[in-house]
Structure formats: structure tokens, C-alpha cells
């Protein structure tokens, strides 16, 4: 049996990898052609608005910026050639020097801030997914209880709301009206070494942004979809059979319902990652959190297209990669998939 399974495994991983690369490739291509299809000379226009604002730039930086932008957007020259140049730029992740802190490469600015974003995002996504699904299953299983109905009403209000609107609401309530949390920033002490105080301060600052992501993530789609799935599973014959056999409710809940719900929920998590990532970018802007989202806002604000492109393509690659990793993990959770 063993060699057969590993052959399937290789094939499964191979197919996923091809899809993964094709997705990034076509995403990048679509962006290129969208910008290319625009009826204006975007680059000169951007350069003009930069110089017009009167922000002081190194003239050398401007020349380099123009060169990079012309290559990235493929203005002038024949389309095929510029497309190849563009692809080379993207896949070597070389977006030229940043303008906001010339001559640091745009790439480096992104990499410096990426750990902040990844830690905020991964922790809050994980917590919200677990809490949301558990609450959803409980509310579905005990649907006649008062708390289930209250939770449902809350979820219906939160579900259609984007992450950043929730962030604004939390900011108004918990940083302005009742000022118990800081209005923004990532840290408010001087970092010399990573002591306990520093870490606590970092957590303190990321609590409100994380809360806004968790509230919407957990009580929004995680809760509602797992509740609906539980209600559907409850009508299955094997549940009735388990109950007739006299299995304790706890056992039915854990082994019969939860296990069956995890699989579709995992898929939804993979598909929802794009939305979570975009939402988190804006949440970072609102809380002045020192992650990639803050950099993105700064780049847009000062017309730094090199950094902007670096952030945008990082976002695309990050989402595609996360989905890819989830796909690879999928057979571990659902024995029925087994590397087909």
C-alpha cells in the first residue's frame, strides 16, 4: 500500500503546485493588462503629481523611479517585450528603490514590516476560526436556548460588516469615549532588547486591531456557516442512530458533528483568506499598526508606486500561498479526500 499512496501524494502535490503557480501568474498578468488598458499615460501623470506637490525628491531617485515605472507598466516599446520585462521584475521581486525612504529597496521595506502583519493576522484568524466554529456548533446543537438566539442576532448584524468598519467602531468606543486602549501605533516604549515589558506592550497595542478582526471573523461567517452546517448535519441518519444508541451528547457533538463540519469550514477559510488579508491591510491603516497595510497607505499617500506594487504583489502571493498550504493540509483533516 505504501508506494501507491506516495505516488498519489506526489500527483496531488504536483497538481496543486501547478494551479498555485498558474494563479499567481494570471493574477499578475491581469493586473498588468488592466493598467496597460488604461487610456492615459499613467506614469507621466504620477510623476507630474509627485513633483507638483513639491515634496523634495532626489533627482536621481526620480529618474530611477521613471525607469522602473516604465518597465513595470510597460509604457512604450512593444507590448510583448514590456510584458516579459514586467514578469521578470515581479518574479525576482525587484521593484526598484522606494521613494519614501530612498534608496532602500521597496522590497526591503515590505520584508521589514511583514512579521508584524503575519503575526497579527495568523493569531487573529486562528482564534476567530476556532471560536467561531465552536460557538456555531454549540448554537446549532442547542438552538432553543436563549444564548443561541442572542448570538444569532449579533452575528446577523456583524456578518455583512467589513473588518475596517468594525475597527472604526471599536476605535470610537474603546479609544476615544472610554480611553482604555491606545489610539494606534505598534509599541510605545523604546526597544533595546526583547524583555517581557516590551512584549506585553506590543500585545497591548495589537489587542484592539486583533479584536476587530476576531469579532467579525468569529461572529460573522465562521459562526453563521458552522451553525447552518450543524443544523443540516443534525438531520442526518447517523446522528439519530448515535442518539438512539445512547451515546452521550458530548460524544455526539465532538465526534459526529464537529468532525464533519471542519472539512467544509476549512475550504471556506482558504477561500476567505483574500478577504481577511485585504481587511487586515485597512485595519492596520486605521490603527497605525506598523505592518504592511500601514506601508501601503503611506505609499499611496506619497505616490510611491514602487513600494505600492511591492505591497500589492506581496499580498497576492501571500494569499495564493496560504490557500495552497491549506490545500496541501486538506487530506490530513478529511480522510475521504486522500490525495486524489
Amino acid at each position, binding site marked *: 500500500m505504501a508506494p501507491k499512496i506516495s505516488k498519489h501524494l506526489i500527483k496531488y502535490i504536483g497538481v496543486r503546485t501547478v494551479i498555485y503557480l498558474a494563479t499567481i501568474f494570471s493574477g499578475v498578468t*491581469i493586473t498588468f493588462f488592466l*493598467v496597460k488598458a488604461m487610456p492615459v499615460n499613467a506614469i507621466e501623470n504620477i510623476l507630474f503629481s509627485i513633483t507638483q506637490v513639491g515634496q523634495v525628491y532626489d533627482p536621481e531617485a526620480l529618474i530611477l523611479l521613471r525607469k522602473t515605472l516604465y518597465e513595470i507598466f510597460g509604457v512604450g516599446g512593444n507590448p510583448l517585450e514590456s510584458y516579459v520585462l514586467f514578469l521578470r521584475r515581479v518574479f525576482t521581486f525587484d521593484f526598484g528603490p522606494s521613494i519614501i525612504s530612498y534608496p532602500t529597496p521597496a522590497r526591503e521595506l515590505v520584508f521589514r514590516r511583514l512579521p508584524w502583519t503575519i503575526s497579527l493576522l495568523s493569531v487573529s484568524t486562528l482564534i476567530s476560526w476556532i471560536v467561531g466554529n465552536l460557538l456555531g456548533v454549540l448554537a446549532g446543537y442547542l438552538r432553543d436556548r436563549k444564548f443561541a438566539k442572542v448570538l444569532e442576532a449579533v452575528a446577523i448584524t456583524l456578518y455583512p460588516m467589513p473588518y475596517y468598519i468594525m475597527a472604526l467602531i471599536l476605535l470610537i468606543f474603546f479609544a476615544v469615549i472610554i480611553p482604555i486602549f491606545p489610539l494606534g501605533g505598534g509599541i510605545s516604549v523604546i526597544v533595546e532588547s526583547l524583555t517581557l515589558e516590551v512584549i506585553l506592550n506590543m500585545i497591548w497595542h495589537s489587542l484592539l486591531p486583533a479584536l476587530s478582526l476576531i469579532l467579525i471573523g468569529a461572529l460573522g461567517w465562521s459562526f453563521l456557516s458552522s451553525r447552518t452546517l450543524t443544523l443540516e448535519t443534525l438531520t442526518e441518519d447517523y446522528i439519530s442512530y448515535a442518539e438512539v444508541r445512547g451515546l452521550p451528547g458530548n460524544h455526539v457533538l465532538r465526534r459526529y458533528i464537529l468532525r464533519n463540519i471542519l472539512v467544509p469550514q476549512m475550504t471556506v477559510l482558504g477561500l476567505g483568506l483574500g478577504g481577511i488579508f485585504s481587511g487586515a491591510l485597512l485595519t492596520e491603516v486605521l490603527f497605525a499598526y506598523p505592518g504592511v497595510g500601514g506601508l501601503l497607505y503611506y505609499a499611496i499617500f506619497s505616490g510611491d508606486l514602487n513600494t505600492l506594487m511591492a505591497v500589492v504583489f506581496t499580498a*497576492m502571493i501571500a494569499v495564493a500561498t496560504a490557500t495552497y498550504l491549506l490545500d496541501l493540509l486538506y487530506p490530513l483533516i478529511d480522510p475521504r479526500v486522500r490525495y486524489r
Partner: protein
Amino acid sequence: MSKAKYLGIIKKAYNATRNIYVSKIKFRMGFTLLIVILLLGFVVSFFAPMNTRTWYTVPKDLPPSTEHLLGTSTMGRDVFWELCASIRNSMIIALMTALIASHVGLFIGLVAGIRGGILDRILMFMTDTFIIIPGLPLLIVVLTVLKQWMTLPLLGALISIVSWPWPARQVRAMVLSLRERTFIYTAMLSGMGMVKVLLREIMPYLLGWHLINFTNTIIFAIGMETGLGILGLSILGDNTLGVMIYWALNQFFALFRGILWWIAAPIAASTFIFVAFYLTSMGLSEYLHPRVR
């Protein structure tokens, strides 16, 4: 179509709406809120006593009072009238997106589902690609370049680029399952053309879903516009909910300075819009698929 037929359709739609309104509490709450929002945006906003786009028409930073219902902003605008105009413009953007995205999605899903084969594969690969590309970053690049030329319908059209793929996938799945039903075979074997089968036999099953999807796309578009607004990428020369937040939050720091009535107004309005449309769509889907409840 004759006049009588039009009247018949209107009467049917009215009766259906009344039925849902009476029987579904979620729909009743959502629909009432929706009417209030639409009235504010498309009726009340035209009675604004001043131009809501010019600065310093009223004294600035006044808290809410009987004269200025929601106070005034640092830019010297009356927040209430600005909000009404913003609701109208945001709704125009969202309606544009919903009109384009839901119909493109419906069309692509139908074609892929009915024709099958290689066409289906190509269309679905495109759809999957668009699903995985994070929409916001894509829009950010496009809008950074196109900012000066932006108009309300154009922004709506651009947002629809990232909101058609989900409907397309779902329509295809529904068509695939419908295609295997007996009554479709009966229709096809009795010599009905493909187009006729589509319009007469399949469309009636999709119309209810289409309406729900339309409502959800509006929610998505309003959210997207607000998000782009926060980044300063919406139409800064006009009033929309996103632009209102942008000026209050990023340019005049209303949060730090405690001018809460200015920043809270667009946030509350967008929250009401989300809840109103979502309750409406939930009520509709409960009415159309009673089994799901």
C-alpha cells in the same frame, strides 16, 4: 409587451413583496430600514439648502443642534446634508456594481453550465483566478492610476471586476444540478431549443437567487467603496461614505480632536445599510427556500 402585461407583473411583484413583508420578520425590519435609507439618499438629499460639495458654507465644528441636526464638520459643511448626498452617491456606485457584476456572473455561469466541455473549463479557470486574486490590492493599483478620471459609474464598474466570480461559480453549480432533472430532459427531447429551455425552464429557478445575489453585491460594493475611501482612493471631489470617513479621519483627525459626530455619521450610516440589505436578503432567501430554515 402590452400595458396590461406590465401591470400584471407589477401587481405580482407587489403581492409577493407584501406576502414576504407580512410573514417574515427579518425582511420586515430590513425592508423598512432600507426604505428609510433610500428616502434619505434619493429624496431628502435633493432638498439640501446648500451645495454639499463646497467648503465653509456653515460655521465649522459645531456639535449637533436643532439647526444642524448632526452638527457641522471642520470643512464647514452640514453633516446631515453631506451624509444624505453621500448615501445617494454610494448607492449609485453600489447599484452600478450590482447591475454589472450580478449579470456578468449570471451569464458566465449559465454559459459554462449549459455548454460544458472546454468552454466550461476555460471560463471556470478564469473565474477561479479572479476568486483567488485579492480584490482590494488589484483595485488599489487601478485606482491609483485612474484617480483623476474617476466618476461614480466608473468606480462602480471597476468594483464589479472583483465581484462577478462568486456568482458565476454558484450559477454554474445550480445549472449543472438542474440540467440533470427530468423536466429539463423532457423539454429538450420534445424539441425545445437551447435558448428556450434556458429562458422558460432554468431561469425561473435562478431568478430568486439572482435577486438575493444582487442584494449581497450591493453590500459588498458599499464595503469596498468605504475601504477604498479610507485609503483616499475614492472620488475625493464628491460626497460618498468612504470619502466622508477619509476627510474626517485622515485629513482632519476627527478622532483625536473628539469631533465624533462627524466621523460617527458615515460609520453609522454604512452599518445601517449593511444590516438593512443583509436582513432583506435573508428574509428573501427564507421565503424562497423554506427548507433551509
